[in-house]
């Protein structure tokens, strides 16, 4: 995203607010194989992938702050892991400009892994008062798998919301370049 119009910022903020409220009121209470899905890294990865690293990092910071405030958790922890995830997703877009349709799945899985593992590492660094079970590893893996399955629908929704403010996607740019000349084998002949 090259411009920061008020409309774009408002839409991104709306994604964060609605997504955050949906997560804490509904998604976290629906258990699949004993764990709830976590939409926050997927939202952050989607915004990063669509809008770039700065937008992804900023969105991750504020979404993490919102979640920590609403759930009365230690402020700063979710912000830190989500901003890293958002920045990383944005850098994937800036460096690779990927056009494959499954890229959101891979990036979503990566963001979920970074978030869940990063959160656990920070908790250990802050000090854990209770014994930690090895089942924590199972919980982490299940959350990552669940989030991977939800990555594409979440990305599709975010893309639909932000569509008026997005530049062309890489596949459309390449298709246009091919059809209008330059890349056509006829013009090269």
């Amino acid at each position, binding site marked *: 995203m090259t411009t920061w119009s008020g409309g774009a910022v408002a839409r991104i903020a709306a994604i964060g607010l609605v997504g955050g409220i*949906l997560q*804490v009121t509904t998604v976290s*209470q*629906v258990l699949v194989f004993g764990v709830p899905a976590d939409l926050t890294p997927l939202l952050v990865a989607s915004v990063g992938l669509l809008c770039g690293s*700065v937008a992804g990092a900023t969105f991750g910071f504020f979404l993490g702050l919102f979640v920590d405030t609403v759930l009365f958790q230690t402020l700063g922890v979710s912000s830190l892991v989500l*901003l890293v995830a958002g920045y990383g997703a944005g850098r994937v877009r800036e460096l690779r400009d990927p056009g494959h349709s499954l890229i959101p799945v891979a990036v979503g899985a990566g963001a979920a892994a970074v978030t869940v593992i990063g959160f656990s590492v920070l*908790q250990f660094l802050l000090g854990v008062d209770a*014994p930690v079970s090895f089942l924590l590893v199972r919980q982490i893996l299940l959350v990552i798998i669940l989030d991977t399955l939800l990555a594409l629908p979440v990305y599709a929704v975010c893309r639909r919301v932000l569509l008026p403010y997005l530049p062309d996607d890489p596949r459309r740019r390449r298709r246009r370049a091919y059809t209008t000349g330059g890349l056509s084998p006829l013009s090269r002949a």
Partner: protein
Amino acid sequence: MYDKQVRRRRAVLVVLVACCIVLLTVYFGESERGTLHATQRGAMEVMAPVQEGANRALKPFRDFFGWFGDTMDAKQERDQLRKDRDKLQQQVVRLELEQNENQQLRGLLSFDRTTNYQPVTSRVYLRSPSTWYSTVQINKGTSDGVRVNQPVINDAGLVGKVKSVSNGNAVVMLLTDQQFGVAAQAVRAGEPGAILPAVGAPGDLLLDLVPRAKRVQPGDRVITAGTVSARLPSPFPRGLLIGTVKRVEGEGELDRTIHVEPAADLRRLDIVQVLTKPTAELTASAAKPRRTGP
């Protein structure tokens, strides 16, 4: 131009990371009455009506998705419940006899026991998705008599205790939260201990610090021990059911690990009660001096 973009990007990242670290450091270092905690409570108070409304509106969708999981677990749960029912029928007979005996003994001792905990019924409308923070939020607060550290129960047993409270809502720390702990007792063996959570295993609690751990067996019920010393009153009344011993690992006395399954289903909490007078059973009348003459 490119350098400017790179510098701007890195500057934003550094500023955001620095903000996170500062927030974390200040929040972690301040007390419950600090500025950030107060701001958090204020924000919670503002967001609570929105979240409660969203919770009610989205309940049908939540129930719909939950139905699939419940259906898969239904057969196994039915078989287990049949076994439990048969065991409980025998226990009921034994307990009825003991209850009669208890009533007679209490009458003989003239024990004035007031069990008026003044429970406040509330609804759970929000839940933390994290494995590390096992908390829920309820729609009652200081205006309803709820205070920090008051125990929270549901129809099955102990659920947790109040962690933080604002005017109209409160955060409840569940039994499985890393910061939770309560003095407990295994009923059949009579052994005291402490209930601790097992972080990462949401349906599992540990009964620790048991002096004679070999006497505790699978199937034993674990209850809150209550106040055992007048100098250190417990916020939990005696006799609240915490759970049942699920399995015991280890052979020796010192290296035994006693796993307890919570009685309350902490994954599906809806209506809970906050005991606003948990020490009501320790009434002044129990300490009244006896009259010795006319």
